[in-house]
């Protein structure tokens, strides 16, 4: 069962990675204009 000591930290750090990615996106204004984003993705520039 020593594998748990390896696997659980890996699972937790992956989860933390996801959480910090979300918080970064929130702070970066990625969710400020949800409706506009679907149109912006189609613009050329």
């Amino acid at each position: 069962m020593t594998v748990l000591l390896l696997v659980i930290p890996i699972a937790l750090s992956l989860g933390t990675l996801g959480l910090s990615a979300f918080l970064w996106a929130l702070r970066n204004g990625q969710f400020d204009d949800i409706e506009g984003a679907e149109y912006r993705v189609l613009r050329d520039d």
Partner: protein
Amino acid sequence: MCCTDMALAYVEAHAAWSEANTKPSLSRDYAAFVARAADGSARAAFAVEGVRCAGCMAAIEDGLAGLPGVSSARLSFSDRRLTVTWTGEAEADIGAVLAALDALGFKAQPFAPGRLSDAEATETRRLIRALAVAGFASMNVMLLAISVWAGNVSDMTPENRDLFHWIQAMIALPAAAYAGRPFYEGAFRGLRAGRVTMDLPITLGVVLTLVMSVVESLAGAAHAYFDGATMLLFFLLIGRVLDQTMRRRTRAFAENLAALRSESATQVEAGGSLRDVPLAELRPGTRILVRPGERVPADGVVEHGASDLDQSLVTGETAAIGVRGGDPVFAGALNGDGALTVRVTAAAGTSLLDAVEELMQRALAARSRALVLADRATRLYVPLVHAAAALTLAGWLAAGAGWHAALLDAVAVLIVTCPCALGLAIPAVQVVASGALFREGVLLNDGTALERFAEIDTVVFDKTGTLTLPLPTLADGQPEGGALRLAARLALSSRHPMAAALAATAPGAEPFPGAEEAAGLGVRAVVDGVALRLGSARFCEAEAQAEAALAVHPDASVICFRAGDAAPVAFAVRQSLRPDAAAVVETLQQAGRRVLILSGDRPSAVEVVARRLGVTEWEAGLTPPDKIARIEALQRSGRRVLMVGDGLNDAPALAAAHASLSPVTAAHVSQAAADALFLGRDLAPVLAVLAAGRRARRLMLQNLWFSAAYNLVAVPLAAAGLLTPLIAALAMSGSSLVVTLNALRARTGTARQGSPAANTAPDPTRAPQLARGRP
């Protein structure tokens, strides 16, 4: 210039004769609308009207990017707001931005900084961060909890189980401390104010679950409920975020509308220069300039200039009123064709607007005392749940079980009854239903209004601007031919609303070169040596013709035209009914609703409209207190009244009624008082709102009943001590899912069930007629 009055005369003349008063033709000072960032760059926010598609967004952003000094222009499509940033060294030229937007065909108005509710945005972000943390925690805790559940029925060693419990505690305790703060604070605030809110059972449930789990883990027990506590927070925060999103969205649109209506005034400085100021900065004695076609921003007395005022938003009266120096003017009146310099009056508390506001506040206070569904549910729910937990504790103690077992079961009752589904039941329906209404051109000001729309059995309409279109059109049976064509072309050079009605009859025509507007009188031009005049009867010397036209159309106003010395022609212009007004009124009456018209206009004008719509109950010449009195009398007799109105004089009535609706062209006080605003020329949104309200209420009640049924099953189970963490997790997530899926049904059907007639009495001949009226 020699003196202030001379400067004022110049300003008035310039404003009246300038080619297009809507464009900033004079240098105006917008400094009050610019915010400076720490690095010295300037930033300003604008409410933009008319943004409908991705093309609009691209046109605006590309069009503004080329302006000198602009470092970025970004339009938020979600709330129709444009943020422009200038580079550090550049001067923030708001006038240039407005002119560029105008050239692109969009109407815009800068926001005064600070009016944007930053607090709301901060709160939304805080809730979303809490939601993210709770989601992270519940996923990871669940991962470990499922291992324990599986281990309990197979070969997990107690040491490993304890390790897993402690890892869960390490994740769940800090996460709950952070993500649960909105609830803990709410419960604390409520207790201090002596109120029991829904936050209290949530806080108790979460805290007790965590404490119990830690105690059980210390004892090396087989069950811990860390997963239940985090999942609970996750689901409840979804409900909170939905609720907050709903509130923020409706408020953002209300603020945009308020900014686009005359929320700023043009102040005349001592030297004669002009400055745009927010309305709040106006003081008694301030002199303001009201350009032709603008709304009067504040009550005052005319100092210079003469013009016709359209007071229909203020009093409901449709005939224009001539004003000149010394006459009082009221906020909300639409200026005709002359520029006015107005001195804002000191009469605080006695002005028409103040009187209206006071009536409105009183009425709103009365309405806010009415309990909405969510409050009623809380009042029932909280004591019941706590009583059930106390009973469980007492019951087990009486039955001879030890303190440990009795407490465990009592806490289990609190956990399983924690209002996951209840917290989602109402906000989820509100968000989905308001989104569906938005697509039909209705903006909801207040989420709780949906429940009130559902109970309506009486509909009261204002006439001017509500049953009729806000802009006048040419009456039927008018003189045709050359005179009309010439008059229509000449009308293009005037900004008077009545002239606009004439101009609309000749689409694509070019204005006469050299046509000029005579302030307060009309417009004239010389074409092929013939002097053409269009304007008041006096201006065209056509009093006899005007009277003849008024005799035929008693509800109309008259605009006259004369070519040289030929016989003058009088055109009757009137407020025409909204295209589907008759169909909507008929549908309402067929569905068994009482329909009334309460108007401030003159009886002859109201009678014509009432007869054409088949409304037998109508009253004319009513003042705002009269309207409130009529509506309160109706409500005392047990009717639930929906008030539909747009005027300043309707605002108190809108607030007094059980629910209210305004067209988007309404006075801004009315917009603030109304529960919802509708866009467009049609009256059909009235039906859509009533149908959506009934549907939303039905879904909310279904959700509440489902939550109650869920508790009826879960509480005995928990009280009997049969609740394992697995059952708790399944019950909580299952009930939340059912409630959310049920709420999604508010999305469908509003378009099809727009007419109550289609609900109660299927009538195939009606449906297409109404469908045509809807966009």
